[in-house]
């Protein structure tokens, strides 16, 4: 590991954090009835799948997982340069009357979450949207807060938080780079 890199969560720590979030989601929603997870591409989708596995282990019932790409909902398109590639949004179930848990790996300014909420609302009108994130690093630019947080990590804006995934897209650890 290079200089200036700190492990915020190792593999076991990440697993424990996700298990705790899964319990909190169940506690808050009193089970998995009408519950669906929507991961924000790409890290959020991996985390959403992990949470779905844990919810099924605990409750014995599967929870649907969708994925949303927020590229077309960003608010920072300017001038003439190159665009980010557009990813795939795949929400293969109705959101009407559902309790949606939006999932991302890192919560930072809140702009990604705002865009993701817009994208979800364009697919239907859920009963509620909750937010689960593995890491909250602060520096919000919008009035958004997470309902479920794996770890709060106070950072400076110069620092980088990186959630690392293995070849099977399962989280390995979380690093802070100064």
């Amino acid at each position: 590991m290079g200089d200036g890199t700190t492990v915020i969560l190792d593999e076991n720590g990440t697993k424990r954090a996700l298990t705790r979030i899964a319990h909190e989601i169940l506690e808050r929603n009193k089970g998995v009835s009408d519950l669906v997870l929507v991961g924000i591409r790409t890290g959020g989708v991996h985390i959403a799948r992990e949470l779905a596995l844990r919810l099924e282990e605990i409750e014995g019932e599967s929870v649907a997982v969708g994925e949303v790409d927020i590229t077309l909902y960003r608010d920072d398109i300017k001038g003439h340069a190159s665009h980010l590639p557009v990813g795939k949004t795949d929400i293969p179930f109705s959101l009407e009357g559902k309790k949606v848990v939006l999932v991302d790996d890192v919560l930072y300014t809140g702009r990604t979450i705002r865009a993701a909420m817009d994208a979800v609302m364009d697919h239907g009108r859920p009963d509620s949207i909750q937010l689960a994130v593995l890491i909250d690093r602060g520096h919000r630019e919008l009035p958004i807060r997470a309902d479920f947080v794996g770890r709060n990590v106070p950072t400076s804006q110069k620092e980088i938080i990186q959630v690392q995934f293995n070849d099977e897209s399962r989280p390995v650890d979380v690093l802070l780079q100064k």
Partner: protein
Amino acid sequence: MGFKHKDIIALRDLTKEEILLLLDTAENMREINSRDIKKVPTLRGKTIINLFYEASTRTRTSFEIAAKRLSADAVNISPSTSSATKGETLLDTAKNLMAMKPDIIVMRHAISGAHYFLAKRLPCSIINAGDGAHEHPSQGLLDMLTMRDRFGKLDGLKVAIVGDVTHSRVARSNIQGLTKMGSQVFLAGPPTMIPTGAEKLGNVTVCNSMNEAIDGADVVMMLRIQLERQGKTLLPTLKEYSRYYGLNPENLKLAKKDAMVMHPGPINRGVELSSYVADGDQSHVMKQVENGVAVRMAMLYHVSGGELTAE
């Protein structure tokens, strides 16, 4: 990789990677077209002018729908309503339109090169919606997307293009795009309608007969005979054309069993295609139209540019 072009005027100007990026974007844009709410805020506040100096139904409508699905404001100008009828030059018209601050001009013009002329002089993006007998890049891209949907690849496909190749901007864009993507293109048509030196365009073979071109083809792309233009002077009769260069259930058997039949429209029924083929199981004509909206959304998105600060 990113898309660095201000304008899209011809597929000959794009690399294989840039074409792939446009196709991939279009593939993901299709999801928007299948929703109840078919709109995303991406180009909110952008103004797009559809400046069509030649008649068009599907291309203009497709660009207009694409713009609106990305939340841009789209304005249509057709020749009968423009000052071109009063003798205004193209550059003067364009400068006047620029004074209204559009972000993108989508133009169809009968003169090949008109788009390059404007792109050099105007700060906004120019998208070619067809220029004379030069190129029709959005049609080429939507054709390639339709083929990739069916085969999962473009590399190694045998594509027969049949008809008036000389005057077809659709054929030229497809030849440019398909040969870049690794397809083999076989051309057939009356000798008066095959350009000299077509072989030099890349992996292109000029055939002596239609049967030779479609033999074993994965895709049979029929071109429209432009009855309003050269169709009257380069052909003895439509009946004769249909006999030698029309696609019917009999000669279609020469192509691969599940070969795709494509046509850029509008179809002259009974001339390029028999109705049986046009409406048959192998026809992908409506799929081409459907893919047109997604491809044009991808083009508008990428030329509109944007420096993104990743969160």
